[in-house]
């Protein structure tokens, strides 16, 4: 199949005195034309997961599992030259967190975009032609080509975001990973960024959106995966999810929004170096009992839905 099929993805970081269990047994499917949003609080392992797929983790990371790109290339453990020359930017584009700090500060947006184009799409002709191609790519990302001649510090947050989008699209990748692309943006810019991701889907790309912003996810996602303490605890079609989550953590997150009850989930997420036995959410969960001392595996919880909970909530659509 086309897209990206992730199974059993596990990432641990070996520190001097501890092991960080950042991602545990994650399974995801990215389908052309669809947007999957992975939501969860900061430090739950979302970004590590995206970086693992692109082989961008530091040397002390131990990665296991499988990630099949278009059913023919296994990304986990693929040699660096394969990832560098065939995958990153060409088949999977990355929109990084805080684009303003991701750009090289001492070069103009144009010089960075043209370098990327040249690298990813082959030298392809004269300087003038490269310039035209950068202009048309910028225009597609909603940029005024004149913005390209500015340095990153001269760009507003929204414009820097569009430059990052243009860079991610330079190699025309069928899969786009967007890692917290809305950090520091105001609502209109969040909405514009989400509309842009939607457009990527409409062009037939598969989009993975990583965010802590549930309302941003709701704007664009076809499917939702909720991550807690390194594991996916619920997956569902977006509409069904927002109508009635099955996992108590997901329910708590939705209720905590200022547009709903605005009440926090008690307690903290566990340390990734000292995960409890059994359900990681158990200590914070009102409905936990003896059964929750063993770890719940993801199980069907409605149509196209999975929840890793011994006592999934009754949904309104059930």
């Amino acid at each position, binding site marked *: 199949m086309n897209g990206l099929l992730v199974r059993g993805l596990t990432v641990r970081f070996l520190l001097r005195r501890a092991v960080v269990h950042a991602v545990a047994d994650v399974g995801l499917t990215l389908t052309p034309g669809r947007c999957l949003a992975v939501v969860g*609080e900061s430090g739950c392992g979302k970004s590590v997961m995206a970086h693992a797929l692109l082989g961008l983790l530091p040397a002390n990371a131990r990665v296991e599992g499988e990630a099949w790109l278009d059913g023919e290339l296994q990304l986990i453990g693929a040699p660096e030259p394969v990832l560098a020359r065939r995958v990153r930017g060409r088949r999977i584009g990355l929109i990084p967190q805080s684009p303003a700090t991701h750009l090289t500060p001492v070069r103009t947006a144009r010089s960075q975009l043209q370098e990327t184009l040249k690298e990813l799409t082959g030298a392809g002709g004269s300087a003038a032609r490269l310039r035209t191609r950068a202009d048309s790519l910028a225009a597609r990302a909603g940029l005024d080509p004149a913005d390209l001649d500015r340095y990153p510090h001269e760009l507003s*947050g929204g414009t820097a975001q569009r430059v990052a989008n243009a860079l991610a699209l330079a190699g025309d990748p069928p899969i786009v990973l967007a890692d917290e692309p809305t950090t520091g943006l105001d609502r209109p810019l969040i909405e514009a960024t989400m509309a842009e991701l939607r457009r990527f889907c409409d062009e037939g790309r598969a989009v993975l959106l990583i965010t802590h912003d549930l309302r941003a996810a709701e704007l664009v996602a076809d499917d939702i995966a909720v991550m807690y303490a390194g594991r996916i605890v619920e997956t569902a079609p977006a509409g069904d999810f927002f109508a009635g989550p099955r996992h108590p953590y997901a329910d708590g997150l939705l209720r905590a929004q200022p547009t709903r009850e605005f009440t926090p989930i008690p307690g*903290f997420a566990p340390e990734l170096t000292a995960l409890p036995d059994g359900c990681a959410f158990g200590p914070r969960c009102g409905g936990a009992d003896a059964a929750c001392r063993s770890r719940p595996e993801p199980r069907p919880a409605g149509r196209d839905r999975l929840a890793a909970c011994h006592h999934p909530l009754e949904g309104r659509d059930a």
Partner: protein
Amino acid sequence: MPDTCALEAAGVTVAFDRRAAVLDSVSFRIEHGAAVGLAGPSGCGKSTLARVLALLLKPSAGSVRLDGRPVTGWRYRAPREARTAIALIFQQPRAAVDPRLTLAEIVAEPLLASGRAGRKEAAHAAASLAERTGLTADLLGRRPHEVSDGQLQRACVARALALEPRYLVCDEMTSMLDASTQAFLVAAVEEYRARTGAGLLAISHDEALLARWCDEVRTLP
């Protein structure tokens, strides 16, 4: 005199560059006990106004009055009793703390720096402040790199409340945080305000949050 119990900016202008003023003769008033929200797009001058009101940035023109008394100095030139009457909580906790201090030291720092408490009392007060913002004892011994953004922001809120300020300025306090941590920290600030009657300026691009949190929401012209 109840009408003077307010943090007030009158005709404040800030221009970082001669061609364009970030704030152009802006007047803004936060009554003691009131919760005022300030919304508006990125770059409209919200944070600049917050820094002027928190006495961290001297405006090019205009004046600020604190409970009826004109403010005469900014930053370290502000008199201590004015400086400690207003607390500012920033968006990025990591940029707002000394990475060498433990969370307990971060929370206790204002008490020690202002001479309001000795080492022992400050540590004791810090523990009780931290409890109100939901930090557990094992977290207090850690340094910033050993905790999450949400946990570090809890320490920053506890630190801001340490000197019992009469006004709180929260500049995008929760925009990096998940919904649950956001709800918790807003509740902690509101619990403090209910107890002390402090005035609040909450700045956010999230109008749904401000509508839920504040008595009134304004935008900058």
